[in-house]
């Protein structure tokens, strides 16, 4: 429950801090994140509007509301997973910082890169299993169990895509660490 204080888009949109290939990748990722965040914002709005519509349609037209909840679920799941990389770019996934405040800066840098590598391993595994899930849903034409029955490839695909972006983002952050270390070593 972080205080939502800092302006969004502050990170990820700024000028690239690295030269060469890494800088190009950084800019590309920032552009993707901007796009994805825009889509995520729209998805949140759509979800709110759909649920609002659901209240009124039930009340005014006595219409059954079967598809609204699922559309809202898909929108929000999609928004959340796709924005995962953008939040990671701002280091917005909260952790317990007690240890980092007592360690020396040098050890802390090593700690943070080890943490990133572990996070990368977890996210890569999760992304891989999301794609296999997506593939399964695609081959078996899986749908949700409601009468509306939208294909499950939609949320699974969004989850897989989001986790993949997250993997790329963390990999880039690890690459920054080594790039900085090289600069320090040579300079």
């Amino acid at each position, binding site marked *: *429950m*972080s*205080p*939502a*204080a800092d*302006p*969004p*888009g502050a990170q990820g949109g700024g000028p690239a801090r690295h030269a060469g290939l890494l800088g190009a990748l950084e800019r590309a990722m920032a552009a993707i994140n901007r796009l994805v*965040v825009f889509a*995520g*914002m729209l998805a*949140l*709005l759509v*979800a*709110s*509007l*759909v*649920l*609002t519509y*659901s*209240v009124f349609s*039930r*009340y005014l037209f006595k219409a059954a509301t079967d598809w*609204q*909840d699922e559309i*809202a*679920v898909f929108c*929000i*799941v999609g*928004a*959340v997973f796709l*924005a*995962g990389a*953008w*939040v990671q770019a*701002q280091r*917005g*996934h*909260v*952790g*317990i*910082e*007690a*240890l*980092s405040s007592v360690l020396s800066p040098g050890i802390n840098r090593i*700690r*943070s890169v080890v*943490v990133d590598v*572990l*996070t990368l391993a*977890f996210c890569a*595994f*999760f992304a891989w*299993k*999301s794609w*296999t*899930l997506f593939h399964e849903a695609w081959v078996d034409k899986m749908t949700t169990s409601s009468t509306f029955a939208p294909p499950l490839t939609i*949320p*699974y695909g969004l*989850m897989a895509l989001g986790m993949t972006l997250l993997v790329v983002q963390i990999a880039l952050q690890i690459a920054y660490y080594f790039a900085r270390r090289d600069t320090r070593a040579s300079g």
Partner: protein
Amino acid sequence: MSMLALGLLFGGVTLLVMATGMPIAFSLGFVAIVFMALFMPAASLDTVTQNVYEEMASITLLSIPLFILKGAAIGRSDAGRDLYLAMHAWMQRIPGGLGIANVFTCALFAAMAGSSPATCSAIGSAGIPEMRRRGYSPGFAAGIIAAGGTLGILLPPSITMILYAVAAEVSLGRLFLAGIGPGLLLVALFSLYAAYRFAKEFRTAHAAFEREGTHSAYLEQKTYSLHEKIEMLPRVLPFVILLIGVMFALYGGYATPSETAGLGAVLALVLIAVVYHVWRPVQLGPILGATLKESTMLMFIIGMSLLFSYVMSYLHISQSAAQAIVAMHLSKWMLLAAILFLVIVLGFFLPPVSIILMTAPIILPPLRAAGFDLIWFGVLMTIVMEMGLIHPPVGLNIFVIKNIAPDIPLADVIWGVLPFVGLMFVAIFLICFFPGIATGIPDAVMGPPVVR
């Protein structure tokens, strides 16, 4: 491996991984997957993502981002400041009225925004300077705001309560209603304390004036004319109506809790467009961006906590721990005290969302076996976790206050907050002795609970 050893290993590894500073969401997922790989059939690893998706794809859980959106819309407009000014103008005749106005504004705003830190920053940035200008001691002013902000997770709609309702499988509507009584009790206790503390500081200032002629802002009375008071209403009333309207839609049976979230978000956006002319994409961007950021962070933690609990339950760790607690044959109230203590300790490290989802499978069965009403306990647990927001070492609200008023020393803020922590303990005792404070309103509105 024995159950105890497995449980200790699981708990130990989790603490260790979290202590490295790995984001909470990824720590939980990481530990879950490692234990799946080591102790569960290989096939379980193949379904891990499906598992997370199915647990998360509940519209009740996914209404959380929409509640956050509603809060962000209101929190980032000037509604907080206006609400505060109006409250202040209307309550100025009561002794200590300014402090009480702050408590009331925090409560109202928190109920609309549903977020403690957002309440602290919105009301605090107007309230703290004003209280200090009027001579309130900095610690007292900071304490009122930090404590007032916590009311957000008790008054509906509260994110913490949504998660509890999901984890404990209790009625969310009933739980929301059960929070109202204790919420009002806390408002009353905080207000009484504010009045008492005001009287005390006023006497000190008055005595100093009599003795040495030291002038204090305390001794000045600022008055508003009726005209001024009425002028302030049009900007505030829409938000109060929004608050009441959304509750009405929920309890009148017009909307499900998740639809209430969507409706609330849309209405809040419409209101800030009409009242504060916030409607351009460039103005809405920060609101939606902040919502997306906080929601993503939170939903990742929730999704991974659910996976973590799933592994814990598959390996029978939660069940064994629950049985072990039952087998200790603690007296009813000892059990409650021990569990609340556990929640307080966890609150030192973890945000409320993870505490609920990780501990629910362990602590709820013994409580149910001991005959406690889980709705009632949900309210108690929420208050205990609220306290975690204002006591060190995490005390998120304290740091929000530190941000708004950087010149107040941290020690002053903490000393200012402590009496309110005490008052929360008083509230907990009162709710234990008079459970009707929590269960009375839901019983009256929705009928007595169905006995399971």
